[in-house]
C-alpha cells in the first residue's frame, strides 16, 4: 500500500488509517505529536505524565477512527481528548511527598487549559504545518528568522541563504504571504 503524500490532508490520512494503512497512522502521529504533547505540558504535567496523556490520546484516536464524523476535524478532536486526559491525570490524588503546589493551584482554579489557550495552540500548529508545506527556500528562511530561539543576524541569514542582506525584507514579506495563502487553504 503506497503511503499517503506528506501533504495529504487530515481527512485523507484518517481515511487511509481506516483502510488499514499503518504508514498513514505514523504520519498522523508525527503530524500531531507537538500539539498533543504540549497540551499536558502547558497544564504543568511532568514529562512522564505528559507521555501518559500522549499515549492515552492516540489510543483513543485509534479506537475511534471509524466513528470520527469528519476526518478533517481530527485536530480539534485530538486537542479536546488531550485536554480531557490531562484533566483526568490532574484530578488524581497526588502523593503527599510529590505535591506540586503550582499544579494543584491550577486545578483549584478550574482552568488549567482554557479554551483560549487551546485555540492558540491549534493555531500555532496550523502555522507550523503551513511552514512544512512551503517550498524549501521559503521554509529555510522562515525557520531561520522566526523559529530559532535566537535568530542569527541578517548578514548570517543572507549568507546561509545566498541572498543579499537588502532582500531579506522583501523575502520576509513574500514568505509570510505564501504562509497566509497556505493557511487559507487549510480551513
Amino acid at each position, binding site marked *: 500500500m503506497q503511503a499517503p503524500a506528506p501533504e495529504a490532508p487530515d481527512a485523507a490520512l484518517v481515511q487511509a*488509517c*481506516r*483502510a*488499514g494503512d*499503518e504508514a498513514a*497512522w*505514523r504520519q498522523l*502521529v*508525527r503530524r500531531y*505529536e*507537538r*500539539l*498533543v*504533547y*504540549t497540551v499536558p*505540558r502547558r497544564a504543568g504535567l511532568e*514529562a512522564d505524565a505528559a*507521555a501518559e496523556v*500522549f*499515549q492515552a490520546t*492516540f*489510543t483513543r484516536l*485509534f479506537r475511534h*477512527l*471509524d466513528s470520527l464524523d469528519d476526518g478533517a476535524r481530527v485536530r*480539534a478532536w485530538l*486537542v479536546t481528548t488531550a485536554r480531557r486526559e490531562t484533566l483526568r491525570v490532574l484530578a488524581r490524588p497526588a502523593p503527599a511527598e510529590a505535591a506540586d503546589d503550582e499544579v494543584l493551584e491550577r486545578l483549584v482554579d478550574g482552568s488549567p487549559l482554557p*479554551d483560549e489557550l*487551546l*485555540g*492558540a*495552540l*491549534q*493555531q*500555532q*500548529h*496550523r*502555522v*507550523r504545518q503551513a*511552514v512544512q508545506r512551503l517550498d524549501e527556500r521559503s521554509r529555510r528562511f*522562515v525557520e531561520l528568522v*522566526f*523559529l530559532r*530561539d535566537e535568530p542569527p543576524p541578517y548578514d548570517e541569514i543572507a549568507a546561509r541563504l545566498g541572498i543579499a542582506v537588502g532582500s531579506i525584507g522583501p523575502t520576509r*514579506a513574500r514568505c*509570510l504571504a505564501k*504562509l*497566509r495563502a497556505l*493557511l*487559507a487553504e487549510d*480551513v
Partner: protein
Amino acid sequence: MTLPPEPDDAELERQLRDSRGLEAAPEHVIQRAFTIWQPRRPAAAPPSLLQRLVAVIGFDSGWTALPAAGVRSAAARQRQVLFTIGSHDLDLRIRPQPGEGFVLSGQLLGPDVRGELSVQVAGHHQRVALDTLAEFRFDAVPAGECRLVLHLAGADCELPPVLLDAP
C-alpha cells in the same frame, strides 16, 4: 472552537514565534504511539450503483418457541432468518402479533451499517432507517410473501422473499 481570522504580517510573525512553544514529544514517546497500531480489516467499500448485490439466506430457524415457560400460543413463537449480503449479514426476527399480523425486527451486521430497510407485502409498504445500532423494526406487517429491500449508499439489495404465515 472557532479559528481566528487569517492574521496580518505582525500577527503571523507573532504566531510563528509563539509556535516555538509547541514542545516536541520525546522520540520514544512517539515510537510508543506507533505501537498502538493493530492490523485493521478495511471497511468494505459501499456498493456502487454498478455493483449487483446478491443476498442469500444463510440460516432459517423456522418457527421456534420463545423461552417463556408455561406459555402456549402463536405469539410465543419466533422465526429467525439470517441473510448474507456481501460483507454484511442481516439478522431478521419474525414474531406473530395477535390480531395485527407480524412484527419484523432485527439488525444489520458488518462495516459501515448505515442505510434503510423497506418491506412490501401485497399492498402494504413500510420503510425505516436503521438506528444507531443498525437495528430496525416493522409493526403490523400482514401475512403473505414478504419482500425486504436493503437500501445502502449507492445501491439497493432485494433479499430473497420470506413467507409470513402463521406458525
